């Protein structure tokens, strides 16, 4: 008996010394790596970033160049059923051409940039705002907390899409709508609605840990509130923040595509030197108008939107499993 107990303790000691302690992040990355769907999502997201950033180098043609006499060319590989016009595809236009002979493939690549910018810029802004206000409201409570919750109620009681439609409709022709192809207006509208979700999650998580002993300990040795929030609370609520940010990114991309599809999105630039030439939403709209005779115009942007949204969703789902193992298998 005695020997086995000693041996057991010995092997336990050994295990503790040979396996270095792992931080939450290393641990989570290990779990994420094993999740095939999440890795697939990550690959799609990386591919998308690559495409958007290096778009101008990858695109075979000028996305705005009108090729006379080459309108509505089908892709060379397209099956019979796609082709009702008896036009013969041109191998230099991989995805065919649109109503005025512009290269659909190049337009698709340029469209990725809008989605990328919409995915990244408002996200940084709303995350910063959501974290600071959520932390303050959760930690200090009182007036600010009440205000935040009432504002949240109002935002949640109004359909998002309706809000975007009304804002874009009303302000499109104002100076705000003209600024940077309407990008600033779009960012503003997206931010107003979306920071609330993050603030609410941060507030909730803050509330749940602010009474914990380590916070009390920090307070009892005289740490200032600001330092407590930054150094003690924030690092401990990063997991839920990462998860909600990962899920809000595809929502932003979809919203931009929807507004583009409704004709309320960004104004396309007039030269390919400009940053925004077209967006996937506008390409889908152009595709739908030609759905019967020129279906290839719809398929490219449709597949692109699907892949990117799927990539972010699988990655977000994987992050949730990895950062919060208790959630595994319940989703």
């Amino acid at each position: 008996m005695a020997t086995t107990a000693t041996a057991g303790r010995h092997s336990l000691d050994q295990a503790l010394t040979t396996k270095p302690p792992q931080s939450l992040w290393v641990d989570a990355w290990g779990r994420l790596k094993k999740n095939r769907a999440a890795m697939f999502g990550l690959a799609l997201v990386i591919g998308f970033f690559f495409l958007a950033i290096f778009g101008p180098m990858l695109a075979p043609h000028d996305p705005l160049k009108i090729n006379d006499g080459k309108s509505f060319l089908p892709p060379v590989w397209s099956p019979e059923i796609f082709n009702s016009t008896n036009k013969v595809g041109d191998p230099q236009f991989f995805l065919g051409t649109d109503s005025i002979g512009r290269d659909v493939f190049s337009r698709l690549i340029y469209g990725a940039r809008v989605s990328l910018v919409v995915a990244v810029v408002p996200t940084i802004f709303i995350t910063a705002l959501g974290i600071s206000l959520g932390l303050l409201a959760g930690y200090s409570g009182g007036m600010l907390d009440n205000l935040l919750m009432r504002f949240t109620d109002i935002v949640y009681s109004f359909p998002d899409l309706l809000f975007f439609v009304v804002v874009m409709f009303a302000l499109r022709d104002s100076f705000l709508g003209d600024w940077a192809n309407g990008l600033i207006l779009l960012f503003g509208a997206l931010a107003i609605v979306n920071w609330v979700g993050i603030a609410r999650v941060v507030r909730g998580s803050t509330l749940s840990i602010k009474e914990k002993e380590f916070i009390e300990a920090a307070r009892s040795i005289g740490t200032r509130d600001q330092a407590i929030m930054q150094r003690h609370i924030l690092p401990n609520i990063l997991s839920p923040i990462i998860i909600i940010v990962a899920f809000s990114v595809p929502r932003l991309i979809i919203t931009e595509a929807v507004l583009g599809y409704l004709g309320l999105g960004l104004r396309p630039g007039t030269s390919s030197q400009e940053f925004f030439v077209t967006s996937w939403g506008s390409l889908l709209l152009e595709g739908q108008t030609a759905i019967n005779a020129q279906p290839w115009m719809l398929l490219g942007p449709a597949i692109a939107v699907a892949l990117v949204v799927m990539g972010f969703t699988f990655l977000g789902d994987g992050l949730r499993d990895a950062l919060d193992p208790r959630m595994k298998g319940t989703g």
Partner: protein
Amino acid sequence: MGRYLIKRLLALVLVLLGVSLLVFGFVRLIPGDPAVVMLGERATPDSIERVRTQLGLNKPIYEQYLIFISNALRGDLGTSVLRGEPVTREILRRFPATIELALGAIIFAIVLGIPLGIISAIKRNSWFDVSSMIVALTGVSMPIFWLGLMLIFLFAVILHWLPSGARLDANTQYEPITNLVLLDSLLQFNLALFMEGLRHLILPALALGTIPMAIIARMTRSSMLEVLNQDYVRTARAKGLKERSVILRHALRNALLPVITIVGLQVGLLLSGAILTETVFSWPGIGRWLVDAIYARDYPIVQGVTLSIAVIFVVINLIVDILYTFVDPRVRFDT
């Protein structure tokens, strides 16, 4: 309970006030003279003056808002500038189409989502479970208009199985009673009309119902998994009940409560989803009307429809919340 209700109703009034200010304010923020924008540059001064008076634009802004609110409270949302139709009457005429679409979508979501969730939970980690949950995850994240376009592409353009839009074929005539095509056709014993309406409804209902279907399937699955581990399920099995009745009578009944809540919460979202679905499928409901009015810059319609959708949305959410407190007494009233 009473205090909770009063609190919620007061909050409702505040939210509605905020919503009306928002709608009213934004329409007023449109740069330029709305009358000129609406009628175009070549309009005569007379017609511009007529539209300005009709819209009440020559009064101070707070007075315009008060008139707008007091008219709206009496059910008068103004008249369309371009066609002269009363907005309220047109909303009532078009709303049944939206209801029909939303009902079709929610029925599809429930009929497919709940069985999918149950089977996935019973056969946990099987290929069926894994693949249906991947479909559900993808379904939640796919935009409605994207799905709608793909459905039209596949079933209308390539396969020619179903029509690509509208409620009925272009040359079909029928006498509306309730303006719900399927109900009217049954009331008139017109089976051909019923089938035609159904064929037109299938694709839009699929497009609108897929997201709720996916949410319901995931919710049913996780709720069933939780319930299947409970002692009373083990007891039911131990006393030798057939697996079928353990699942359907003992587990499912208890698992459905959270699912019902989710279904309720979807109703509000269906309404805003209907705006897109109707646009994609040329479905003549209020959502499509709103989008058309935006292109035509018919401000009274934009204002009236936006306000109506927001009011319906807010009221439905309130009803769901209140029902929930009845169904689940654990919900605390004081929050």
